[in-house]
């Protein structure tokens, strides 16, 4: 090995030394030799002329040795590359079918593989784009019964840890909110806000492209700076990259703020969609551990591991009671409070890891299928051309030259495949298969770059060369004599075994992917037909956020009257039959509301139950098609006394142990305050709220009335402010976005309608994740099936064509045609069975990795396994039957004519 390496290096070195110079040195050396020999001859007594002639004769043909020496240096083979490439191109042109098949198969496989591979690498493996990313960790706060992935902190634990912990050089927090509107200028705009602790910026090494960063003192409400940072994107989009933006006050529906700096687009923390960065305040005046929402990220000190940091924080946790006596140790213990410390990268990508690993496996499979098929084509072709090769060899072509010719042919085909591979990779990376960073974190960091092109080309060259080499193993480099003799009889055994192996392998992969497609297909079907508890049908939705502040809509009365007027305007539009409002609507993926702590008003022995509160209009249930199970919907006067609430069936059962609770009292518990009583007036069906696969979410509904039922302007009858709400509009003709914006602008120019969507779209989005994964696997599965069928067919057909002579002799000797057909069929089917057994075993072991994506289907569901196997048997039967029938129909006279 080292020897080959050195030889190769020597050749490369000499290549650079320049051929001319080398030739000149050689000539000089030879000339000296002849001169010295001449001198020697003269010394022996020859005449000058004779001596020189004798020297030349003895040396032999100088030109020949010159060439041999050059050959020994390996320069000739480098020289021949150009000639071989030309030869390869000629061969490629001569076999357009073969070349096209190889180019397209390899191109698609390579393009898709590089595309998906770049995504998987960029999201799962590449370092986060910050200074010393290995030191960044996400600090989670976990309690019993919290949803997986819900590890956000209450303000007090962050405050406590930031002051007491020694493991971190910085501990930061943020909250993202999507219900802020920019109200300056002509058109209001919904913006995404990140409230961050100012040390976030120094911790991550952010540098403003304009102005300065936030300061520690900015977190105080009384600070007259009222500073914010804006993103480069917002600065360019809304303010035309105007440098005078610094120190300008922006009108925001929660009060005006002053811009102190612009952060570059490359700073995509905590999410690339963030438009404005607020300095976060950490309120600890009323310490609570149930009001949570702070995402805590820290930078570990040198030498501190996540495990030691977690140990320190968990030890610090009980001492929070020393700082905040209202939070007792007993409370912490009862809720099972504990802290987790995870590397930031792992924490960021955790939710999508199973899908991405699946995608990564798909990359491998796609590339594997493409390469095995191309290798098969190559093998088939070299086998056909093996006589040609044998003749070339016997005429004295060197093996090195032959190897070179094969490799170069492979490389030329590989390079040709980049014509397909590059657009395929570019397409994969620009569409990202329809995913956005909403579904896959860090996806915005992935794009089609020059290095992608380099990767595609490098892979194409290596794969092409490797395939040429594999093709070479089939040439007559060994057993030349056998090959010449065996000219047209049975293919060699090793060759057939290699091909059989490849085909069995393809059958196995095809089966595995078919099973996976089946499982995901049924999941999708189940999701699509899941009882979601409402009627998505003909409806549109949009979000409306009302401005805060003195001339805003902070009170219930003001919000309610705005909504009432807007509903009236909308209902007056032609074609609209009903307009309903809710703080959150199912499957919208936004408009999340805080959880409430609820308890039965007459039976306090039962514990409290957490559920989200939703402020809705009386017609919400009929508009959404949510069935009323008992009692009534809201009506005028419901806000007086103990205000009316409606419970979903599941919530009623959780709080009271029964759903027959109309007329009973439910208490909303707020720490350090007396419980607030509400009267249950109705029970409605449960709905799937967040994602369909998460199941039904218990929900408490508060009334959103047209006014406050005479309770006074500042009354707060329900604990949810109806300021950020979703509208649902039904009717034969739905208003256009332009109409909506127009009507809103007439009512209050600061209020935009955002997230306008049809309910059908929301529903499609909710099933998109499973649908897309299913599609990807189905594409891979169907192409694997197709390739396996082609593989089975070509192997069997090839075996038949190689045995024509044998078959015709057998037939001539009286064998029944059926027996011959059966023999071929049996051979082919043995192959398929082998692949099928391997595929079933692999599928049995591998499908459990799909569990995260399956919905109400077991990973080893017998139906999917049986159907996939049956399908595969059916198509491979056809693939073997066709050549078998041909074998049975060989006319016995063929042998007399042939060869």
């Amino acid at each position: 090995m080292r020897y080959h390496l050195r030889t190769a290096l020597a050749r490369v070195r000499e290549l650079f030394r320049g051929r001319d110079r080398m030739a000149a040195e050689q000539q000089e050396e030879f000339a000296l030799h002849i001169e010295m020999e001449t001198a020697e001859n003269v010394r022996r007594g020859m005449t000058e002329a004779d001596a020189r002639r004798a020297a030349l004769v003895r040396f032999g043909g100088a030109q020949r040795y010159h060439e041999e020496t050059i050959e020994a240096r390996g320069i000739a083979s480098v020289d021949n590359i150009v000639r071989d490439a030309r030869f390869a191109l000629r061969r490629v042109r001569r076999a357009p079918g073969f070349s096209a098949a190889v180019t397209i198969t390899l191109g698609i496989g390579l393009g898709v593989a590089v595309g998906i591979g770049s995504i998987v690498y960029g999201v799962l493996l590449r370092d986060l784009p910050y200074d010393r990313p290995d030191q960044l960790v996400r600090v989670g706060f976990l309690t019993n019964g919290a949803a997986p992935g819900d590890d956000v902190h209450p303000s007090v634990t962050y405050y406590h840890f930031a002051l007491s912990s020694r493991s971190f050089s910085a501990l930061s927090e943020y909250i993202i909110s999507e219900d802020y509107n920019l109200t300056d200028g002509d058109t209001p705009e919904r913006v995404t806000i990140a409230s961050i602790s100012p040390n976030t910026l120094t911790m991550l090494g952010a540098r403003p492209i304009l102005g300065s960063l936030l300061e520690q003192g900015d977190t105080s409400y009384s600070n007259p700076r009222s500073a914010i940072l804006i993103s480069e994107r917002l600065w360019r989009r809304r303010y035309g990259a105007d440098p005078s933006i610094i120190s300008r006050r922006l009108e925001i529906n929660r009060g005006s703020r002053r811009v102190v700096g612009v952060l570059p687009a490359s700073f995509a923390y905590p999410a690339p969609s963030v438009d404005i960065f607020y300095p976060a305040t950490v309120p600890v005046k009323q310490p609570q551990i149930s009001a949570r929402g702070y995402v805590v990220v820290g930078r570990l000190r040198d030498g501190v591991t996540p495990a030691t940091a977690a140990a320190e924080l968990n030890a610090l946790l009980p001492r929070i009671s020393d700082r905040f006596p209202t939070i007792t140790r007993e409370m912490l213990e009862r809720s099972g409070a504990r802290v987790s410390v995870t590397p930031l990268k792992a924490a960021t990508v955790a939710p999508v890891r199973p899908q991405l690993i699946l995608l990564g496996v798909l990359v491998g499979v796609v590339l594997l299928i493409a390469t095995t098929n191309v290798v098969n084509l190559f093998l088939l072709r070299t086998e056909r051309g093996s006589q040609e090769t044998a003749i070339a060899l016997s005429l004295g072509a060197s093996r090195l030259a032959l190897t070179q010719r094969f490799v170069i042919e492979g490389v030329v085909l590989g390079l040709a495949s980049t014509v397909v591979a590059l657009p395929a990779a570019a397409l994969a990376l620009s569409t990202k298969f329809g995913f956005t960073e909403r579904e896959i974190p860090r996806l915005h960091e992935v794009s089609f770059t020059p290095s992608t092109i380099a990767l595609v080309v490098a892979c194409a060259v290596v794969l092409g060369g490797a395939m040429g080499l594999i093709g070479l193993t089939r040439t007559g480099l060994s057993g030349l004599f056998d090959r010449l003799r065996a000219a047209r009889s049975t293919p060699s055994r090793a060759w057939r075994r290699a091909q059989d192996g490849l085909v069995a392998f393809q059958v196995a992969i095809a089966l595995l992917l078919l099973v996976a497609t089946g499982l995901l297909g049924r999941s999708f079907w189940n999701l699509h037909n899941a009882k979601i508890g409402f009627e998505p049908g003909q409806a549109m939705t949009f979000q409306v956020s009302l401005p805060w502040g003195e001339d805003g809509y902070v009170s219930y009365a003001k919000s309610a009257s705005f909504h009432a007027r807007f509903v009236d305007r909308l209902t007056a539009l032609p074609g609209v039959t009903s307009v309903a409002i809710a703080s959150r609507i199912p499957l919208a993926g936004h408009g999340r509301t805080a959880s409430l702590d609820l308890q039965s008003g007459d039976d306090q022995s039962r514990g409290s139950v957490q559920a989200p509160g939703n402020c809705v209009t009386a017609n919400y249930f009929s508009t959404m098609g949510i069935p009323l199970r008992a009692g009534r919907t809201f009506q005028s006067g419901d806000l007086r006394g103990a205000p009316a609430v409606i419970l979903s069936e599941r919530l009623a059962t959780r709080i009271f142990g029964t759903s027959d609770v109309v007329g009973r009292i439910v208490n909303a518990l707020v720490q350090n305050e007396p419980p607030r009583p509400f009267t249950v007036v109705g029970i409605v069906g449960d709905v799937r709220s967040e994602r369909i696969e998460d199941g039904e979410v218990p929900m408490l509904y508060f009334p959103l009335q047209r006014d406050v039922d005479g309770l006074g302007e500042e009354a707060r009858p329900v604990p949810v402010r109806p300021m950020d709400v979703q509208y649902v509009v039904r009717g034969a003709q739905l208003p256009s976005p332009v109409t909506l914006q127009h009507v809103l602008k007439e009512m209050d120019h600061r209020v935009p309608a955002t997230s306008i969507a049809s309910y059908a779209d929301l529903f499609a989005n909710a099933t998109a994740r499973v649908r897309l994964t299913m599609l990807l696997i189905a594409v891979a599965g169907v192409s694997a099936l197709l390739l396996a069928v082609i593989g089975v067919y070509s192997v069997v057909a090839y075996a038949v064509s190689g045995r024509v002579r044998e078959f015709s002799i057998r037939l001539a000797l009286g064998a029944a045609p059926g027996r011959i057909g059966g023999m071929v069929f049996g051979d082919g089917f043995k192959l398929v069975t082998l692949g099928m057994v391997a595929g079933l075993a692999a599928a049995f072991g591998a499908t459990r990795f799909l569990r995260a994506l399956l919905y109400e289907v077991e990973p080893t569901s017998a139906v999917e396994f049986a159907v996939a196997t049956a399908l595969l048997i059916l198509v491979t039967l056809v693939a073997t039957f066709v050549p078998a029938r041909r074998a049975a129909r060989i006319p016995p006279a063929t042998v007399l004519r042939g060869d």
Partner: protein
Amino acid sequence: MAKPTSNEQVLQGTLDLLILKTLSLAPMHGWGLTHRIEQLSQDVLQVGQGSIYPALVRLEQRGWIDTEWRVTENSRRAKYYRLTTAGRRALGQELASWNRFVGAVGLVLAAEADA
């Protein structure tokens, strides 16, 4: 090709060994090498003079010999060949294998007809 007279053609495959051995005595240029081999073999072995150069290139590529342009005693520029450490090791191996070969041939030739 130079016709063998009463002399022996160098046996195929032994040229490398002869070159390595001769160079182990002293670095020298191509003509010197052929001359020295003939001299040492008392003119029995005739090296195909031109064929020594391809062999030298092969050995150089294997890293067994090094080259260097130097000035001869008659003040001519000439390419000198010198044995490397790897070459010295290779010479030992080649020698051992040659000796084994010669011994084996000797054994065969010395065999006497059995009854």
